[in-house]
């Protein structure tokens, strides 16, 4: 066997598992649903689908999705960058706590956050005078609230170990701080920033609760429209048309970001320098971090305050009630049980997405020998981003109609939920690992190999130390995604094993002051759990690599 063929086989073997999972749990269900739109009563009829694309309403929906996502992404990046600098390049008391707290919004169910936001900006809220309720500005703020953590974490992980010397060299050559940032730091961070931005864009474009709750029904995005068409109107032609629009849009996005992400030399020198304390020159970071803290903290504070109110007094009655089943048995299982289910599911989703993501990242970042090989790797890279951009409703319905025949009769399996969540988390994992793995000098691996280390050992020597932190960051992400995932989970979770967001959704959907208070309390518990898990993850440091 030629060594070229061997490489191709290795590539295929490494990619086989993630590809199979993606094929069965994503491509199959989604194409099943889209197929329902194209085949009407057993005959192929694409006309109806194409006709949908001509509707003015569809144009409005697409346009809103695009501009709201662009704005949401832009603000998330503009706020996230300086905050990432402060949180990952500066040493100060409580920065780990702050980092963990900023990831909290990511897991909160949109129903609850929507309520918390609206209590602030609603007509009767303390910020009601701004007139934000039901405005596009509220939607954008909500999108930023949920996603700024993605930018902070993904860019921070890359920034944390960036070699400061090129920047110092530029400064020594007479470049001011802004110039240094623009000409040295930014190019080095570009892959991470583009990665984070593309993920955030997809999150924004598929946001569901935020658009409905904060937009006061005046705005429709592709996601809300697909939901309406599928669950309410059963207009599968139109839903298929919009799903195809989503797929095309993601593909376009991936092509663009792929271009933007490509850098001539992805090697990143890792630094050994200690980070210093913040100084006056860090004001952009301090300012942005301040804005982020206010943006993220205020609704959270409102949530905490609300959860501590019962019968118009301060009390922890709402928390006490969590071990019960809600007033008038709104729940099948106590919230505490749901928390256990959530954590277990999250553990499964995390290891699944980490192992799949690691394989994908390895496949994608290995140096390509030929142009076609490079193209195949790029294609794989993009393929695993798709689950982020496709409607959870399409996926959920697709599961039901396609995964019903042996050997794939898994509609009942408890594993369906973690698998679905792992698929949603996978792009985040891949996007966190790829910049770092791509930044590892290939010659390090070759040096290890020439000293007698096999591929596995070389990986452990060279890649793992470089990846340890991003891997932890990715694990945190995956865990958080799983804890907070609602769209697909609500379709797949079995009644006897609901997760926290589902229980919270149920509580807030039933009348009774106690249920409302419990929903808030359960959200606070979910938030606190997330923060604690994030802190623990950050504490997991390996002595031998702790020095950089």
């Amino acid at each position, binding site marked *: 066997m030629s060594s070229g063929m061997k490489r191709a086989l290795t590539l295929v073997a490494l990619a086989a598992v993630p590809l199979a999972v993606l094929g069965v749990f994503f491509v199959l269900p989604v194409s099943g649903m889209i197929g329902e739109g194209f085949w009407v009563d057993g005959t192929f009829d694409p006309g109806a689908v194409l006709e949908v694309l001509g509707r003015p309403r569809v144009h409005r929906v697409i346009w809103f999705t695009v501009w709201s996502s662009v704005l949401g992404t832009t603000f998330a990046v503009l706020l996230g960058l300086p905050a990432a600098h402060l949180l990952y390049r500066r040493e100060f008391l409580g920065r780990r706590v702050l980092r963990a707290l900023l990831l909290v919004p990511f897991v909160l169910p949109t129903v609850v956050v929507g309520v918390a936001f609206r*209590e602030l900006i*609603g007509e009767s809220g303390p910020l009601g005078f701004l007139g934000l309720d039901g405005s596009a500005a509220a939607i954008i703020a909500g999108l930023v609230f949920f996603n700024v953590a993605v930018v902070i974490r993904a860019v921070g992980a890359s920034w944390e170990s960036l070699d400061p010397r090129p920047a110092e060299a530029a400064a020594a050559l007479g470049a001011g701080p802004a110039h240094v940032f623009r000409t040295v730091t930014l190019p080095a961070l570009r892959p991470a920033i583009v990665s984070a931005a593309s993920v955030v864009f997809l999150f924004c474009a598929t946001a569901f609760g935020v658009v409905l709750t904060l937009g006061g*029904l005046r705005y429709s995005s592709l996601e809300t429209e697909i939901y309406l068409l599928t669950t309410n109107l059963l207009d599968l032609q139109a839903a298929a048309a919009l799903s195809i629009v989503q797929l095309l849009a993601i593909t376009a996005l991936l092509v663009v970001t792929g271009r933007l992400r490509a850098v001539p030399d992805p090697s990143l020198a890792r630094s050994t320098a200690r980070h210093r304390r913040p100084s006056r020159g860090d004001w952009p970071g301090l300012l942005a971090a301040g804005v982020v803290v206010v943006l993220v903290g205020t609704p959270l504070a409102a949530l905490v305050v609300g959860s501590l109110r019962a019968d118009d007094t301060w009390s922890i009655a709402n928390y006490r009630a969590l071990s019960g089943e809600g007033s008038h048995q709104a729940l099948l299982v106590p919230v505490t049980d749901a928390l256990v289910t959530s*954590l*277990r599911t999250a553990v*499964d989703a995390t*290891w699944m997405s980490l192992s799949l993501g690691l394989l994908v990242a390895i496949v994608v970042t290995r140096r390509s020998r030929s142009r076609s090989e490079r193209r195949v790797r790029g294609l794989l890279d993009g393929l695993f981003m798709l689950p982020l951009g496709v409607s959870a409703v399409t996926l959920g319905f697709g599961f039901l109609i396609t995964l019903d025949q042996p050997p794939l009769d898994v*509609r009942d399996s408890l594993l369906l939920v973690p698998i679905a969540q792992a698929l949603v988390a996978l792009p985040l994992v891949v996007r966190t690992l790829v910049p770092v793995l791509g930044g590892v000098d290939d010659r390090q691996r070759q040096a290890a190999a020439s000293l007698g280390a096999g591929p596995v050992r070389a990986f452990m020597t060279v890649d793992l130390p470089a990846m340890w932190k991003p891997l932890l960051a990715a694990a945190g992400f995956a865990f958080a995604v799983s804890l907070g995932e609602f769209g697909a989970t609500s379709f797949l979770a079995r009644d006897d094993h609901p997760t926290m967001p589902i229980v919270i959704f*149920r509580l807030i959907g039933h009348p009774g002051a106690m249920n*409302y208070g419990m929903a808030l309390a359960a959200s606070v518990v979910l938030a606190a759990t997330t923060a604690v898990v994030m802190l623990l993850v950050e504490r997991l440091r390996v002595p031998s690599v702790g020095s950089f």
Partner: protein
Amino acid sequence: MRLAAPILAIVLAGSACSAVGEDSSPGDETASDRVVLVTHESFVLPKKLEKQFEEESGYDLVVRGSGDAGTLTNKLVLTKDDPLGDVAFGVDNTFASRALDEGVFAPYDAELPAGADAYELAGDDDHRLTPVDNASVCVNVDDTWFAEHDLAPPTTLDDLADPAYQDLFVLPGAATSSPGMAFLLTTVAAYGDAWPDYWTKLMANGAKLTAGWSDAYEVDFTQGGGQGDRPIVLSYDSSPAFTVADGKTSTSALLDTCFRQVEYAGVLDGAANPDGAEALVDFLLSPDVQAALPDSMYVFPVASDAPLPQDWAEFAQQPTKPYAVDPASISEHRDDWLREWSDVTSR
């Protein structure tokens, strides 16, 4: 290998918490030993009753609940060739004809409790759907607020468009919420083809739309958890029973603004265990379940002799003449109505 220890620790911790391997889906159990109930996310029955069913019938009960009534109906339609279970509960009269047209349900003429025949679905002549509960979507008002502001509360749909009540009404939208859709149907029934004009007036009078019931009730309604500032809200006829303090309710439902939603159960066509499915439909009509419905699912039983909880009996009044729209007509026009409604309300 200094890396090995932490990795091992994580793997161990992970496997200890993992749910893999304890998938409790009963593999060795044949389909005829169990009944699978497909329902929406609001379905709740006390555990005691579920056990009682299992003991009396000898079947294991498996409940699969997710999504709202619309999602449930569409799921059933999409999987009709390979049903998700044996029996479905939660398809309501706004979605019923779609399910019937698509042949989701098999006929089963259950023995109805007293009074339940009033809720049977018009046009369902071969008894595919069995009524189990009902709840009416009505406009609710905060009586305390109106007393404090020395203003007579509204009573009719027309009142809601009266400038005296400007900026006081909050309701969930028809496109995203089941009670919202019910209110749209109320206006269709009340105003016929002129319903868009009514909505134009309603919106001009400052009515506020939210995505879901919880947004309207919990955030914007003066009696909700978030203590908003709108004293008129779209909710249910049973809602006043949940604002009781010191033996008095602070809200009331306007019984001339109601649309009745009836929820049905039915045996799925192609069920693996049709006998079990029929047994479960019967069970849902049994006195015990009917009596448990108000507390579990916030709905009224269809059995007229089922006892109501005290707060309900005292404070939750049902409309005597709710508005109604022919299910077939809903099925036919839902799409057009929603589209027109969206146009009118986002203008």
